[in-house]
């Protein structure tokens, strides 16, 4: 099992790319959803104040 993760000598390269990429992709997907929710909350808050 460990051997599969080590990938010869190239594990460091492969895994770092995958981790960073997956991180960015998740962030990319989350961002619009989060900001939409944020906008909604801000808007409804303002409504209450008004």
């Amino acid at each position, binding site marked *: 099992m460990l051997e599969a993760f080590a990938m010869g000598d190239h594990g460091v*390269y492969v895994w770092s790319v995958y981790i960073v*990429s997956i991180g960015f992709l998740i962030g990319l997907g989350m961002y*619009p959803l989060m900001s939409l929710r944020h*906008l909604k909350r801000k*808007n409804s808050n303002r409504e209450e104040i008004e």
Partner: protein
Amino acid sequence: MSPEIFFRGSLMWVYCLYLIGILGLSLGTIWGLFFVPPEKFQGDSFRIMFIHVPAAHLSQIIYIGIAVAGVVYIVWRTKMADVFMAAAAPVGLITTGLALLSGIVWGKPTWGTWWVWDARTISVLILFFLFFGQIALRQAVSRPERAAFAVSVLAIVGAINIPIIKYSVEWFTTLHQPASITLTRESAISMVFLIPLLINIASFYIYIAGVVLAGMRTLVLRRHKHTSWVQAWTGSS
């Protein structure tokens, strides 16, 4: 299409695209990482390809999309084209960044150097700056109408430049490159690698389409925050 109809109609699409994209990416990635034998010449480092190739593909497609939207905006003043440009530019910047990063890391074990100046690396690098220019110009212009126009012009000029850059760089680097490094050796892609790669490319497209669509929804909401339908939507749940 009215912003309201777009906003209400697109929610299902976002969910579907996200879902299919994530499933496909997981499938392709796991397949590529664990169920494909090491490549003959490169060993295991070639597995970076399953990220690198889709990201590089997509960055170019996104830029072409922005340029087409720029034409649409200039000719028909379609506001949705501008929304698309605004939503797609940051996504393009990040996918281009990923393509560059994965390319750099892939280069080290494969060619023994982090960076090689060739037509493909340079055009992706230029693409990165073009995306950055899109975002910077939009932020610098306060009036949205003017920003949309300026960004459209820039996108079109940039798109015309990409093939010219490719041509000139290709020509320039063959001049300067020692012939020993051949970058175009695609290591005779066999079916074993091709299937997970295609799955990943397709899923990347689908996922990013969902991301751009979700970004467009947010922008539409932000731009129409004073209208009654937005007020109704924020109050509804």
